[in-house]
């Protein structure tokens, strides 16, 4: 996989998120209360809200626009809501974070 370094875990607040800009749009990188790190598309499946701006609780985030609750692990909407965002593989080596971008980004680069 093509791992791209994005920074250190301490640059993300606990129970918070930061954005990574890519040629394919923004990726939201989350850090939970227990220092798990997840990356998903920063785009709610409901109306495109920026998930990186939501409140993080457990391993999920509540979208700031209309309160969809999205699982950070699967990208799926929880509860009665339906929808899913793309998850992005993220690697954490001693706090140094990298993400793996999919083929879309590679194609765009050619």
């Amino acid at each position, binding site marked *: 996989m093509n791992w791209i370094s994005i920074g250190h875990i301490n640059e993300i607040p606990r*129970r*918070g998120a930061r954005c990574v800009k890519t040629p394919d749009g923004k990726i939201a*990188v989350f850090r939970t209360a227990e220092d798990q790190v997840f990356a998903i598309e920063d785009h709610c499946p409901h109306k495109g809200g920026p998930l990186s*701006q939501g409140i993080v*609780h457990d391993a999920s985030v*509540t979208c700031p626009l209309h309160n969809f609750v999205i699982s950070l692990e699967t990208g799926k909407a929880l509860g009665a809501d339906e929808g899913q965002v793309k998850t992005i593989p993220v690697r954490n080596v001693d706090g140094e974070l990298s993400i793996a971008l999919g083929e879309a980004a590679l194609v765009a680069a050619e």
Partner: protein
Amino acid sequence: MTEKLVIIGNGMAPGRMLEELFEKAPGLYDVTIFNAEPRVNYDRIMLSPVLSGEKAYEDIVIHGDDWYETHGVTLHKGARVTGIDRANKTVTSAAGVTVAYDKLVIATGSNPFIIPVPGHTLPGVLAYRDLDDVETMLTACRTGGPAVVIGGGILGLEAAYGLKRQGMDVTVIHLSDTIMERQLDPPAAYLLEKALTERGIDIITKANTRQILGTEKVEGVELEDGRIIPAHLVVMAVGIRPSAQLAREAGLAVNRGIVVDDGMQTSDASIFALGECAEHRGICYGLVAPLYESARVLADRLVGGSEEYKGSVVNTKLKVTGINLFSAGDFGEGPDREEIVLRDANAGIYKRLILKDNRIIGAVLYGETADGSWFFDMLKRGTDISEMRDTLIFGQAYQGGSPLDPTAAVAALPDDAEICGCNGVCKSKIVGAITGKGLTSLDDVRAHTKASASCGSCTGLVEQLMVVTLGDAYNPAAVTPMCGCTHLGHDDVRHLIKAKSLKSIPAVMQELEWKTSCGCAKCRPALNYYLVCDWPDEYADDYQSRFINERVHANIQKDGTYSVVPRMWGGVTSSAELRAIADVVDKFEIPMVKVTGGQRIDMLGIQKEDLPAVWADLGKAGFVSGQAYAKGLRTVKTCVGSDWCRFGTQDSTGLGIKLEKFMWGSWTPAKVKLAVSGCPRNCAEATCKDIGVICVDSGYEIHFAGAAGLDIKGTEVLGLVRTEEEALEHIVALTQMYRENARYLERIYKWAKRIGYAEIRRQIMEDEVKRKVFYDRFVFSQKFAQVDPWSERVSGKDKHEFKPMATIGYSQAAE
């Protein structure tokens, strides 16, 4: 001929390995040990009890000199090995002793990590690793004084406890938000921090060390935020690094540690590595249990066996007398995981099990750890727990018990805890009345004690007290819980926060027995507000529990851009202000400028990254945040009043500006909008606001509880006052009553309807003492609230919020 086994290092892992080896095959090897420390093998885990004075060095020796003699081991004490010659199969010590080996075991352990801040080499700055460090600390303790421990992990906290027991004044400085974050989740860390604080240890979290101060010797520690903590002794316990230099120089494969296979063999078939210096399947272990497991494997290999080390799941205990704490496995969350949480606020117990596919994968226990080994055993075995799931958390001895008692939190309150704030009624008075007078209904209790007879917000608590006192004989009306994380309603939570002096979100969740470990998007913002409101000077706002608008101090729009509304006091502006706004709009190409209903100007469509620069420009023109995003004071709408209007009776603009300048920055349960009209023609539309003023010839008519949103409702009249000062005092007192009483997100009109307009009039208009107390509390709270959030952020606060973490371009993505 007997083969020669040479061991570099004499710690616990090679000690255990030799015990196993001598038991399996006594006399198989001729053993030589080089020990850099001038001692025999002692129990390094027990250094903390030696430091605290609970044990002596002699108590922790594992192998005395006679043991080495009995087994024919040659022990070179104080002998550091300086080189390994793999071609000739020899090792050489600093003193020049060269010994040949057939098999070599490297067990050099680890080195403490010393943060290279200025001053780290000053005398009095120590690591905490071996007996020498402990002896230096004990010497320092004889003169007493302040000590600082850098690092709030296991070792650091044990050092802090030991130093405290030896009479030092100890402060622990820890980089992360919570102590022992690798082993504990935030709720357990809260309990531990509380217990250590009660033992007199100061703990500062989120603290980064800038430098260690002193000239001849250490005098103190300076933090990044400028705070200086005096210290005669600084102990660094921030982590360890595998000691692998010797192996690296010998050309063995080394990552973080010396790389070994499942047989503990290094990249050289004659050389093995054991203990903290070894890296097995990418992991360097620092706890004794896995080291002992791998020691057993190595002993087997050395006698020709084929056992394999498969890695270990580790568990942790803290060796501080009177604190019971256990942590094992993985306690992160995930959708495929479930958690079972048990909290007993009274006994200070927190237990959390993390399950995946009906198997325990992690456990955190605080306060009562007797079942730790039982849980840990099932975790290691991968036992299916579906059969005992309902009673699992209660432990091994407990099967088929009754469900948790929801009234426990109320039962645990002390007798003098205030239940009803309006009428000053404490718990013992209510319980006394119920038992003494044989009361059985809520109305009876209200009649006899006045508890919950005024605003009624403590009704839930009074009813729970009746349940505690009367048992099943009393059936309370159902309370709607705040959210799925608790069985308590908003009113109960608010009362208990005050009655139990709860001053942080983890404290509330523990003491009120929250059912989740981290809360949810419903309860966290509410709790954060209640704590900000109740402890304005003590509580530190929990940024991550705020909705995005209150975190970035702008309003999020449907496309993810933001809108910005500066304050225009009382709706009054000037050419200079308008020019500054025009310049900002041009400079940042702001697509939409809109006049709001609250008499100010909204700039829409601003990129998040531009916000600090926009605020910087607005700030130069004198603008501050209009808090158009806040559950707090928004606008004070005014008409031009007696200064210009031929009908105006009072200076409505002036009063509006005074009110806004007095009240800006305050957080409230929901947004608060005010208006002041200069005459009953009411051009400022004051009669549909949260609080409104209609000026009349004889003074100021104060209105409240209007609405012009989801609901439309004209205001109620609070009363008529004569002067501007009185109007301000009454309005401020009413706002404070609302702040202290209402449920989060409940607007004034809903709150007032729920508790009764008459009750509000009684407390604000008639009860002068009460009004003054509300007023004073609002004024006190404003000391901490009136900070312009925009200028704070222009100066760099929360800058991570406005910048992407990384930007990946095409070329990088394509690599």
